[in-house]
């Protein structure tokens, strides 16, 4: 077996099918998207080559930069919420009573489809019959806001279900990482007289650092290209107040039939995501990784 696997040709043979698939499904479309971005195209007729016009227009497009700002805000909020998830995971991993049940409760939103979550929260936010406003009214708040119709509120009203949706996912990742820490380390620290906070800060945190780095990238990049709940719940409205980069791309390509410009947005989005990933990796890079030993 070892001999077979050291044969370069055999390795190539095994890798080839998935490599071809990835090329055909991921990389070739990316190149094509970049190319479509250089054209003016309504998606149906002939393409006209316009060089960098679409990309230049993109830089001057205030709607795009507004939507980019909204995406960035979402990324910041998801980044911050990771701290909360880590704390929850630490509590759950500490063998408290009912931890198992709570872990499952947190995970449930992740099992629902995005559209179901969107419908659920649409009902919660409904301006007159919604759960939220009914509760507010019964508490004595006269005339509570129409959450999804107010330009100043809509974005934050959307962040809540988006963060809620992914909470279980990150908690699960942290939980698994924390469970992986050998119990002997914690016991040794306890014998040395460390309290719970010190154990969390000085022992657990450094040991799950690698996982945290990965989740930061996941959360930030996932937020930058976020689309589904926003598309179903507000469609980027009202007046673009909840438009994010991905929904703007969709609107330009499929509503305004400007596939060239839509492709340019899509490609630029990819570039932003790559750049952000690179920056995060740079910022969080550490010379020595801490290992269990």
């Amino acid at each position: 077996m070892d001999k077979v696997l050291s044969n370069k040709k055999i390795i190539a043979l095994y890798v080839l099918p998935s490599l071809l698939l990835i090329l055909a499904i991921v990389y070739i479309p990316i190149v094509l998207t970049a190319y479509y971005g250089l054209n003016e195209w309504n998606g149906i007729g002939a393409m006209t080559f316009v060089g960098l016009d679409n990309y230049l227009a993109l830089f001057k497009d205030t709607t795009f930069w507004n939507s980019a700002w909204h995406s960035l805000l979402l990324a910041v909020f998801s980044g911050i919420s990771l701290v909360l998830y880590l704390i929850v995971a630490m509590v759950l991993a500490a063998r408290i009573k009912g931890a198992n049940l709570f872990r499952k409760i947190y995970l449930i939103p992740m099992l629902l489809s995005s559209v179901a979550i969107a419908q659920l929260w649409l009902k919660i936010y409904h301006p007159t019959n919604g759960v939220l406003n009914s509760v507010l009214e019964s508490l004595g708040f006269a005339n509570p806001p129409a959450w999804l119709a107010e330009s100043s509120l809509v974005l934050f009203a959307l962040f809540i279900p988006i963060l809620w949706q992914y909470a279980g996912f990150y908690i699960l990742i942290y939980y698994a990482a924390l469970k992986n820490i050998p119990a002997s380390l914690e016991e040794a620290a306890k014998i040395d007289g460390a309290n719970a906070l010190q154990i969390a800060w000085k022992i657990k945190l450094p040991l799950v650092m690698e996982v945290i780095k990965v989740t930061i990238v996941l959360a930030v990049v996932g937020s930058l290209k976020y689309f589904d709940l926003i598309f179903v719940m507000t469609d980027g409205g009202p007046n673009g107040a909840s438009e994010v980069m991905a929904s703007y791309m969709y609107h330009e390509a499929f509503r305004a039939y400007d596939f060239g410009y839509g492709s340019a947005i899509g490609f630029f989005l990819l570039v932003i995501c790559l750049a952000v990933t690179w920056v995060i990796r740079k910022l969080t890079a550490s010379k020595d990784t801490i290992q269990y030993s």
Partner: protein
Amino acid sequence: MAICLVLVAAGCGKNNNEGNSGSKENAGVSGEKVTVNFMHLWPEGVSAGQNKIVNQIIKAYQAEHPNVTIKQEVLDNEQYKNKLKVLSASNKLPDVGVTWAAGFLQPYVEGKLFTPVDDLLSGELNGKFVSGTTEAYAIDGKTYALPLEFNIAPVYYNKALFEKYNLEIPQTYEQLKAVAKTLSENGIAPIALGNKDRWTGSLWYMYLADRIAGQQTLSGAINGDGSFMDEGLLKAATEVQTLVDSNAFVKGFNGLSNEEAKSEFLNGKAAMYMMGTWELPNFTTNEDIPKEFRDSVGFFKFPTVEGGKGDINSWVGGPGVGLFVAENSAVKAEAKAFVEYFVTQWGEQAVTGAGVIPATKVDTSSMELPQLYIDLFNEMNQASSITLFADVQMQASAAETHLNMIQALFGKAATPEKFSEEHDKAVSEGK
């Protein structure tokens, strides 16, 4: 198994050859076996009524023309639109398919994908269409599809609620505002509006524009001959905001979808609802909605505005879907013959079977129809003008601007001046 696969593959291959060769063009009338591919958007689950009618028509047609097989491909609305786009990019459109009017049609016509059907219009179908319907499918003097449906948008109202608060049908805009005020004071949302979908708000703007500035000014501005900076059109935009300020629309309308707004009306929480005649089955025959409610739905025409140039018989509306024949179909003659047959058969069956208002003239006197239908049919026949829905009429990118600006205007994120400026800019860019 292998044999099966080979057979299937061979079958595909054969079909493709037929589809692409084009050599048999106009040859089929002779009685040779031909297959006409027909793609439509009435799946059994969602549009049971239409689906049944389509199958009946196809069955009858095949019985009359034993050499022709109509092969159906059925998709949901959104999937249909996407697939049509994909198929046209690779030039593999079905022989016959469903399309929308004006702005939707344009790129397909520019790409030379649809064939003109003017010969059908001057043939057996001459004079059969309600006036103003086929024009929406005409580009540069040629008609590229035959309409199946036609809709106008009245204001539906809840008679029970109107009675409860001693309200009369408003004849003037001032009366409409007074009605809205009374309702709002009594805790009833006057008008259900789901402006997340944007075209819903567009209807309100269009009627105000029509009544204040007149139909000619409005359509002139939309097709680029005039300007949205016209005094009357600016006033219409201002009036939209006046209505918003007086709480005439349901709370949070900019965040509600049309479906959500409709349910406010259906639940009796809102008293008025402006929508196309495609909603009629919900107010007449749909058993899922309580009979008590259906019986209390009436409609009125958008009232006139004092000093305005529009008249009360002018409507906003538009054709729904129509049928096209693909330019490079190998069986164009049969496809056209089928379209002609389909359109003639569709009219009467569509009203009774699916509650659709057809684009062809139908004699309602011999039919058992709910009164609401008959009244609206009559209104349609005495319409002084019908302005096509703005977002259908405009080019895709201009329509997108229009819809976005509608939401901004209703949400008071744009002034009437800004609203008009953006429109003029978008329309002139699209020209």
